[in-house]
């Protein structure tokens, strides 16, 4: 029964997009219904997988594997066999669940759109790409799904975005297009080196990981690993919108429609972090170790710089984008520590930031729908006309700045615990980010929800019934991870330990 569940999860959204192609254009509610089903079913399946997942195991589970492409003479006289292979382990499971939740809620959060049918077609193609990235066990397949997210994103921003949509859509495309260059160079180089060890050319992640783990130092030199890691790391910096390659993210968040902002902040920009864990730490741990200080420094720069920039933002969406960058800086710091706590904190932070971004962008979208603006200065006293939305916004902001009992807190604790062991001084500087986060978030909150309500904001409606679903689900998950961290910790623990032991040996 579990046999093809992963394939179903990946391709149901695409199937939904195909079906939508045949729905008449005039109708507005049908496309949404199809999109809802096409994202709800994968969510259910992901739930089934989670229920059946054996977290005591390190390896991949629910795997599917078929040969797909045969390329003769790719490595000496050997063929390269590219596989269609999917699987989940403790690292990808949280990302799978995150994708399932956020993409479904994204559909719920979508209001009336012009050209609704096309919107959902692109949205569903994007969802397939996202699932594919986290479930692929073949590097080629991963790359294919990663590229697959580019086209729908271009249209989703370009057609349904704000006033600078065309320019920002192109910016998104070029930035991420260039990032994939680095990823591809690194991937194929890894595959060729692994082939030199094993004599068989493959792009299978597991096989390459094993080959690198047991490779003698003269076949795969450490300078090769360092070079490849630098290329990969550069790509991740772009992919993950780190300073100085971050400018596409605030622009994207500012211009994209609400549900797309949720998916970008919640899932899409986490792909870079996933690559860092899976390929960086998983395949090239000694290179990560070698560049640990560099990674930590870049992490701290991002934590502090993005927090400072967030303070001067006038638009909520840009503020949240910089806040996300600042939080993802913590992930870099945690990874640089290269110990159990640090890595685990990194994964926690990635997931937590995904959930919080999803929630925050949803709320800001809901406010924008009512007030017509996201400029902090133009808002004020929202707690009076819409106490529920304002209340949830406060909860989300508190979660984001790391209030105990919510996911942000445990993530920061773990990451900094790991980081303090390795880089006490840098980590101390990094904690500045926590303080700054409190400043910019609470300040923005205060200006938005408190104070006198301006005349045109008076009498605006509060949350509708359907809007409770995303808010309650996301807040519940954030609090669940906050008060019962082992629900996430148990999942990733084994995979992370297996990475950590490899560093030691």
């Amino acid at each position, binding site marked *: 029964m579990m046999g093809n569940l992963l394939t179903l999860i990946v391709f149901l959204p695409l199937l939904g997009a195909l079906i939508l192609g045949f729905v008449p254009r005039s109708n507005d509610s049908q496309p949404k219904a199809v999109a809802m089903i096409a994202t709800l079913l994968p969510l259910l399946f992901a739930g089934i997988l989670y229920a059946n997942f054996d977290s005591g195991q390190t390896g991949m589970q629910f795997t599917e594997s078929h040969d*797909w*492409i*045969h*390329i*003769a*003479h*790719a*490595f*000496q*006289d050997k*063929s*390269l066999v590219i596989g269609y292979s999917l699987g989940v382990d403790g690292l990808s499971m949280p990302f799978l669940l995150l994708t399932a939740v956020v993409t479904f809620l994204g559909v719920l959060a979508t209001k009336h759109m012009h050209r609704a049918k*096309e919107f959902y077609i692109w949205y569903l193609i994007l969802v397939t790409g996202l699932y594919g990235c986290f479930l692929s066990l073949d590097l*080629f397949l991963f790359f*294919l*799904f990663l*590229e*697959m997210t*580019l*086209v729908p994103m*271009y*249209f989703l921003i*370009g*057609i349904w975005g704000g006033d600078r949509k*065309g320019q920002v859509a*192109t910016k998104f*495309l*070029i930035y991420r*297009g*260039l990032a*994939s*260059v*680095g990823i*591809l*160079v690194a991937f*194929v*180089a890894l595959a*060729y080196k692994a082939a030199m060890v094993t004599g068989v050319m493959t792009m299978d992640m597991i096989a390459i990981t094993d080959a690198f783990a047991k490779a003698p130092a003269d076949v795969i030199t450490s300078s090769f690993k360092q070079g490849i890691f630098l*290329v990969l790391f550069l790509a991740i910096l772009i992919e993950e919108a780190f300073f100085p390659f971050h400018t596409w993210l605030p622009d994207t968040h500012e211009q994209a429609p609400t549900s797309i902002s949720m998916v970008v902040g919640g899932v899409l920009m986490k792909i870079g972090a996933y690559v860092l864990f899976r390929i960086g730490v998983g395949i090239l741990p000694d290179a990560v170790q070698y560049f640990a200080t560099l990674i930590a420094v870049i992490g701290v720069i991002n934590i502090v710089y993005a927090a400072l920039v967030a303070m001067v933002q006038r638009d909520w969406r840009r503020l949240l984008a910089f806040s996300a960058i600042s939080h993802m800086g913590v992930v870099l710091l945690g990874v640089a520590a290269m110990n159990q706590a640090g890595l685990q904190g990194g994964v926690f932070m990635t997931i937590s930031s995904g959930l919080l971004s999803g929630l925050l962008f949803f709320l800001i979208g809901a406010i924008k729908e009512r007030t017509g603006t996201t400029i902090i200065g133009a808002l004020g006293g929202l707690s009076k006309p819409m106490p529920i939305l304002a209340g949830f916004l406060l909860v989300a902001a508190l979660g984001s700045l790391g209030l105990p009992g919510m996911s942000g807190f445990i993530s920061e604790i773990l990451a900094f615990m790991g980081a303090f062991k390795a880089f006490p001084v840098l980590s101390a500087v990094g904690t500045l980010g926590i303080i700054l986060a409190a400043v910019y978030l609470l300040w923005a909150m205060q200006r938005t929800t408190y104070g006198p309500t301006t005349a045109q904001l008076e009498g605006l409606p509060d949350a509708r019934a359907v809007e409770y679903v995303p808010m309650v689900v996301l807040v519940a998950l954030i609090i669940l991870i906050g008060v019962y961290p082992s629900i996430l910790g148990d999942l990733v623990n084994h995979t992370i330990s297996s990475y950590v032991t490899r560093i030691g040996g």
Partner: protein
Amino acid sequence: MNGINGVTQLAFSDVWRVMAPEILLVLGGFLILVLDLFMNKESSRRLSPQLGILFLIAAFVMTIRNFGLVSDQTAGGTGELLNLSNMLYVLDDFGNVFKLLFTAGTALVLLMSIDFFKQNPEVKVAEYTYLMLFATTGAMVMASSLDLITLFVGLELLSISSYVLVAMRRNHAKSAEGGMKYLVIGSIASAMALYGMSFLYGVTGQTNLAYGAQTVIQMWLQFKPLLTLAFLLMLIGFGVKVSLVPFHQWSPDTYEGAPNPVTAFLAVVSKAAGFALILRTFLWGFSGVFGDVYIYLVILAALTMVVGNVAALSQKNIKRLLAYSSVAQAGYLLLPLAVLGKGKSIDNIWLALGQTSFYLVAYLFMTMGAFAVLTVVTRQAGNETLEAFRGLWKRAPFLAVSMAVFVLSMAGMPLTAGFIGKFYIFLGTINTEMYWLGGLLFATSAIAFYYYFGVLKAMFLKDSAVQSHDKIQVPVSLTVTIAIGLIGTLALGIFPDLLMKFLNGLHWFGQ
């Protein structure tokens, strides 16, 4: 001189067995030429392209049969190179693959031309058709000769026919300008190539590449500058034909001026023939010293990828845009050969030939499809700018989606043939550890997103400039071309093994 091992000499009576496709096309050309004299104008206009396509299909089928000859036991031992007149003309799978490309490409071009004839009553249909057939024959000779003289004859047959085809609309100023530019630059290119060939002959005393190759190795130390000069002159000459930077300047003007089907012919068949010639000449003639000359190919490939893509950024005319895009594609296509300079074994050659062939097939499908869509859209809009594509998704969803697939394939997006093709070529650059070149391949592709997505932007993001939302009428012949392009592009993108398996089993040079 008595042959080389692994080669089967054939008697002259075997000429049909080896040259059946070429003979069919020449016969077809002459038949159309003669029929035109006797038939009335109406039926000649109707019959000529149909006859042409028929002969191309027959040549296609005979080429498929020839794959059997190369590997067939009864034809004289497994996997041997069949040759005529002491290695003057050979039958191997390398030539066969290219012949398939040429015949399929020209057939699609003629299919597109049927509509062009209807729109332009002043064009002489029979003349146009037999020139196409002769040009294709020339291309075939370029893919199958091992002698500089026959190679040059093939090149000239293709080129001279093309010059006339470009200027087919005589009272059309741009057509004449394009034809003239192509004639002048093409002739200079031919002269350069010939000059280079003469040096090669001077040093080796041979016009035959198979025998000459051994002499090149012996003479290399002594005559290195002269042989390098010969290599470079030939490279320039051939480079013009496939529009490598900096020898590409003719192509935007010629592409813009030529009738759409002829542009498609230049972009696909003529370019593929140029690459057949480049591969044939350099892989045979310079195989022994390739490590010393490959760097020029690397430089040209890098330049072509960068300049082609950057120059395309500012184009507003869709045909000029596709011209620069086709320049950039030439850069990608040169990469497999260029990286062979750092190749480690003979397998790298087979890899390179597979890469070039796969990309050319992908390129055939996407380019033909794109030109077919372009023909319909620009005619309806009355201009050839990107504006013509505005709001196409509303007016003609099928055309818009098809064009999107073709453009995405050129940009190298997943699930299209172009993506697999690029990845395939990319493998070779990493295999030979030329990481920067592979990086450049995909980095310039990312730059190219800008203009490819400009086309998509016009089609899907903007509203139509034309107020009337008339349905666009698509002629049957163009619908078929678009459908073939669409099916080919998607099928190879999703199931690349359809072609990979076939390429994997080939005996490229008979081995």
